[in-house]
């Protein structure tokens, strides 16, 4: 039967085509099912287990892991640190990258392309390696940052070794590492602003600042939310940098939720995979909530734009 269809010269193509369609979508279905759908669903089951390691017996304990999470100061601390990193770094990245993008979007600015490349380079550098290197750059006794401080007569700072400065240091490196990607987002947004609008405004005698507040800003409003959302989602996955720079310390001052999950699952002397799964589910819910709110904002802004 299959052979006759395959060799049929003309019309009964419909069935053959439909079979190929499923062949084409199958790899994605199987792989995505194994590595995205199954983990999402099974996490909920795993989160209700007392489970002390791969291949070890597990017992069903209902919502005990969630009860524990809700009364776990380290978990709440990790949520607090994650939120703090978002609240501090996202606005800085949005504002600084916009400023850079506006300057570098000027086609008559000399060396604009080269400068864009320079600001973008940290984005492609492997985050985990950047984290380790930064531990080195910020070293209190011999790193170049402290060498510079010494040069201007300031005392050495143990940036990553003190709980007062560790989180700020991680945030500074995080902004440095990822500012270039936000700049590219803004440059893409700026490309959508029609050039003749500026020319018309210039003819009408509008200065650079007026052109910015009256043309650029209103047209960029819808992008603020989209770029903000992309930036927030990226920031929630700050795992690589935190694990390599501080491992969550000192005294849990940089412990973000993903690092805490990792520690519970793999790095603890007494692993607790069930508890890690529960934390993962809570973190997933948290992410979905944040993204949901931001998507709602996108709709709202777009709706307003359509009304105006």
């Amino acid at each position, binding site marked *: 039967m299959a052979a006759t269809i395959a060799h049929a010269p003309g019309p009964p193509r419909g069935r053959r085509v*439909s079979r190929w369609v499923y062949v084409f979508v199958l790899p*994605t279905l199987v792989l995505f099912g194994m590595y995205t759908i199954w983990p999402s669903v099974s996490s909920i089951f795993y989160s209700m287990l007392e489970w002390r390691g*791969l291949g070890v017996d597990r017992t069903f304990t209902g919502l005990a892991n969630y009860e524990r999470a809700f009364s776990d100061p380290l978990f709440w601390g990790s949520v607090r640190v994650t939120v703090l990193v978002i609240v501090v770094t996202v606005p800085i990245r949005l504002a600084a990258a916009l400023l850079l993008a506006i300057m570098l979007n000027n086609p008559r600015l000399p*060396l604009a392309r080269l400068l864009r490349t320079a600001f973008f*380079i940290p984005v492609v550098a492997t985050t985990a390696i950047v984290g380790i290197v930064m531990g080195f750059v910020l070293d209190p006794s011999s790193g170049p940052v402290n060498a510079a401080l010494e040069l201007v007569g300031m005392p050495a700072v143990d940036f990553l070794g003190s709980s007062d400065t560790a989180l700020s240091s991680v945030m500074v490196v995080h902004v440095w590492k990822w500012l270039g990607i936000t700049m590219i987002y803004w440059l893409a947004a700026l490309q959508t602003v029609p050039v003749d609008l500026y020319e018309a405004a210039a003819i009408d005698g509008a200065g650079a600042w007026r052109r910015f507040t009256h043309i650029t800003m209103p047209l960029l409003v819808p992008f603020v939310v989209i770029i903000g959302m992309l930036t927030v989602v990226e920031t929630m*996955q700050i795992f690589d940098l935190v694990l390599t720079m501080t491992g969550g310390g000192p005294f849990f001052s940089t412990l973000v939720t993903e690092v805490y999950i990792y520690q519970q699952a793999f790095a603890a002397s007494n692993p607790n995979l069930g508890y890690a799964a529960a934390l993962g589910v809570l973190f*997933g819910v948290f*992410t979905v909530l944040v993204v949901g709110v931001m998507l709602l904002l996108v709709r709202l802004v777009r709706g307003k734009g359509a009304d105006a």
Partner: protein
Amino acid sequence: MRAPVSRRTLRWLQTIVLSAVALAWIYPLLWILSASVKDATGIFGSGLSLWPESWQWENYSRAWDEAGFARYMVNSVLVTVGTVVIVVVRCAAAGYVIARYRFVGRRLIVGVLAATMFIPTGLFVVPVVELSDVLGLLNSHLGLILALAGGGHVAAVLLYAGFYAKVPKELEEAAVVDGAGFLRTFLRIMLPLSGPITATVVVLTFLATWNNFFLPLVFTFSTPQNRTLAVGMLAFQGTNSTDWSGLAAAASLSLLPILALFLVLQRYFVEGIAGAVKS
């Protein structure tokens, strides 16, 4: 006459200020490159200076041979290339049929793909490790490649689907008239047409995989010989925390391939990333 001149001066002034900031911006990366060819006293003693007093190339041979970075490099290349190939094949194929054919479950597939776009690794990691362990894939390159290529990559599917949706129907019909079947039409006409999309997907997947850390870390706990560069770097730091010049050489070895690739294919990186905003 004066206005345009002063405006040009102003622009050059802007460039000079921005160049100074840009130089400071890439300074940490330059510093690590320079530290990779200094000896220990050179790193400690020279402060901010980038120029080494004596060139210590043996830092590289120490990282490459003794610290095992030759092995890590091979692993990184294998894992990244394997992942990129699987992602391109599966995403192009899925994007093609999603865009051009109506079939049972199509809407459901698109909905599920979109809904899972932002799920964090933290939620995945325990079940993925458990599944890989049960299937006997946990300690192999193949297991890591499948995990890296299998989950996510929703953006790549949507990118292909968006492209194929815009290809005119006449092209396909002409191919059918010429006697090309489904597979031939796809391989000979559609896939070559989507070359720019493939370039973007290859470059962005390469970047994400080469730089991935969480999954390679948890997949190589009991098989240190399978470590990728980033994971190897963490291990090196853990065991040789005093060999700073070796550490700098290892970091340079790990960063140079991806930085070089970026400088050559910059356009695709930037276009791919910018696409996230425009769509």
